[in-house]
């Protein structure tokens, strides 16, 4: 895909998978264990001078994506094309060794925990000047002058006072400023900031974010801002990408995202921002449950099991039915649970993503009629459950009860208004 001259970074179909090591027994026997798709098919184009926010819950893959941009985690497939101001684009995903290291002058990173990101046994002068030493840019008096200039630039002044200090002598905000001084000293173009203010005190956050904006203006930086905090993203970012289970579910200008969220997940995230108005009640329709296991993501749209607006074609599957039955068991009385558990067992036949499945009485205890009665009762108790929209038929067969699930519609990012959304609801009818 060709890139425009003002594009600094173009990510195409990026995937980062991690092998799960599994139990020691399965490792010994060489059994295959699952892979976690931390980043699962991402396409982003980043323009020079823009601030892109990667927003998502824990486990959504936002940090992994940020680290992959710098080549700190190897990409499983896809390309990350970095285009310098003058010259040909380079694919970071395929770089190794010395060429990758030399790219680090252009691409830098600011870490979440400033206390851990600085070597505890290096003075600030050594630590901040080290990138210049590594890339053999400066030495001696010039190095010292550039360290001082960098410290002054991030607001640690008078710089001479900080040169001989150790990280343990500084406050959290000062440490994060020092980390930033180290990042900008080589003159990078792109800085990946991984939750740079989440470990800082509230009073310092705004100052550090303002510093980052000043640096961007003065040095012409481009930021990738990784965060779970929508409030700072709104303040800080030009564009926001909402991530869920390794995929981007919505991306667009931050004004658009915050004023008119489209994806149900974005909507629920925005509802979860605490409102400092005591008269307002806590919203009740936050996404239920937890983020699913990334080793076995749900079929279709990954968000459908938690989505309040799910349709029949969102990718419903037998595993969702199992979750529903288990949820029903947690609320029912003990006698009903024991009877039903005796009847259908652990529902292992539902651990699949197949389009249809038959639930049989467990080990011949009970008849298909009993199973039918059980599922009918569950359905009648909560007919509004979004899952039933995805079940096209539930019928009795000689063996048990057969469920047929609706096929899922593709969920790729498509334009809707100024942003792009990956949801079957968009584009809605014109």
């Amino acid at each position, binding site marked *: 895909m060709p890139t425009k001259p003002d594009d600094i970074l173009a990510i195409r179909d990026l995937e980062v998978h991690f092998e799960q090591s599994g139990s020691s027994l399965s490792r010994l026997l060489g059994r295959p264990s699952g892979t976690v798709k931390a980043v699962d098919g991402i396409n982003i184009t980043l323009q020079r001078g823009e601030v892109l926010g990667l927003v998502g819950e824990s486990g959504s893959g936002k940090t992994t994506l940020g680290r992959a941009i*710098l080549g*700190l985690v190897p990409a499983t497939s896809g390309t990350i094309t970095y285009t310098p101001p003058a010259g040909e684009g380079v694919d970071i995903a395929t770089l190794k060794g010395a060429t990758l*290291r*030399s*790219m*680090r*002058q252009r691409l*830098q*990173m600011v*870490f979440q*925990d400033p206390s*851990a*990101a*600085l*070597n*505890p*046994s*290096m003075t600030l002068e050594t630590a901040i000047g*080290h*990138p210049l030493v*590594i*890339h053999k840019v400066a030495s001696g008096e010039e190095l010292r002058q550039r360290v001082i200039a960098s410290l002054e630039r991030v607001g640690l002044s008078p710089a001479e*006072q900080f040169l*001989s200090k*150790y990280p343990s002598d500084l406050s959290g905000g000062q440490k994060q400023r020092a*980390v930033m001084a*180290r990042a900008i000293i*080589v003159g990078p173009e792109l800085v990946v900031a991984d939750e740079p203010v989440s470990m800082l005190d509230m009073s310092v956050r705004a100052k550090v974010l303002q510093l980052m904006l000043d640096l961007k203006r003065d040095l012409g930086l481009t930021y990738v801002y990784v965060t779970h905090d929508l409030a700072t993203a709104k303040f800080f970012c030009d564009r926001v990408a909402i991530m869920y289970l390794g995929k981007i579910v919505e991306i667009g200008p931050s004004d658009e995202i915050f004023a008119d969220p489209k994806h149900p997940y974005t909507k629920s995230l925005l509802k979860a921002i605490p409102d400092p108005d005591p008269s307002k009640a806590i919203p009740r329709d936050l996404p239920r449950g937890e983020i699913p296991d990334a080793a076995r993501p749900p079929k279709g749209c990954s968000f459908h099991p938690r989505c309040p607006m799910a349709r029949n074609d969102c990718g419903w599957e037998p595993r969702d039915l199992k979750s529903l039955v288990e949820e029903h068991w947690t609320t029912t009385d003990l006698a009903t649970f024991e009877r039903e558990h005796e009847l259908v067992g652990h529902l292992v036949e539902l651990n699949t993503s197949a389009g249809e499945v038959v639930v049989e009485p467990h080990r011949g205890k009970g008849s298909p009629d009993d199973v039918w009665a059980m599922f009918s009762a569950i359905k009648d108790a909560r007919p509004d459950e979004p899952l039933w929209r995805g079940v096209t038929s539930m019928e009795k067969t000689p063996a048990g009860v057969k469920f047929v699930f609706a096929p899922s519609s593709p969920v790729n990012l498509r334009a809707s208004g100024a942003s792009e959304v990956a949801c079957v609801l968009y584009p809605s009818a014109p």
Partner: protein
Amino acid sequence: MNSFFGRLLAPFRNTTGLARWILVTGLIITGTFVIAAIFAPILAPYGFAQMSVAGVDFPKTSPPGPGHLFGTNNQFYDILSRVIWGAQTAISVVLLSVVLSALIGVPLGLLSGYVGRWTDRILVFIMDALYAFPSLLLAIVFAFLLQHSIGSGVISAALSLTVIYIPQYFRVVRNTTVSAREATYVEAARALGAKNGTIMGRYLFSNVIQSVPVIATLNAADAISTLAALGFLGLGIQPTDASEWGYDLSRALQDASAGIWWTGFFPGMAIVGLVMGLTLVGEGLNETINPTLRKRRFRKVTLPPRTPGREEVGS
């Protein structure tokens, strides 16, 4: 530079009570032996292999007295001189072996912990194999082998002790490296574009080295007794090359039943003294450096008196 020493001494200044006494006592005892070792040519009244002065032979096994403060032994040697010269031998052998084993063990541990995978497995296997032997047995084997190639002097004794102590440095450094490798500052160094060698040398080394002084002093104590054992068995340094406490002790063995106590007592006390001194230093350092054992001393903060009328200079 001043602040560097300040930081180096900071844990010592923070020690309290018992830990400080252990450390100070150990340092005094060890210091005495070190002074004896350095100034042996001045302090010792005679040479370690001297049997006569001005043509007059020393008396054989004469008890401690005015001419020979610690007496003489059955080889006509002056025991006081041999104890002082022995300190020189012991300190130089132990210093050499500790430095050598740290020089080999620490980089290997760093490499093994940082690189991991096969390098790690092979190195751990070799070190565990070395560790599995009783240290004295291993030292005897190496002393025996080295006797043929480079003779039996200070160097060969130091080398055979080095082999025993490498695995200890290796293990401690490797284990700390494995945990430090995952620290954010290591990833940050990688994000800066640092080479693996730079990461090991500049980022990991200074953070994993802290436990090495403790091992070094405790190993030194252990090395003194192993050296003495080698000398006692006749595998150590030849008596004409240097004075060695373990050798003197073995010569004094048959004297003990004859009531000649001074030939064995003084070299024995020298061994006990130096081992104790080094052990105390090691334990004291451990209590001082190891944060899980350390109790911090809270020192009173004294503020400089305010001088009214002067503008306060903020920092």
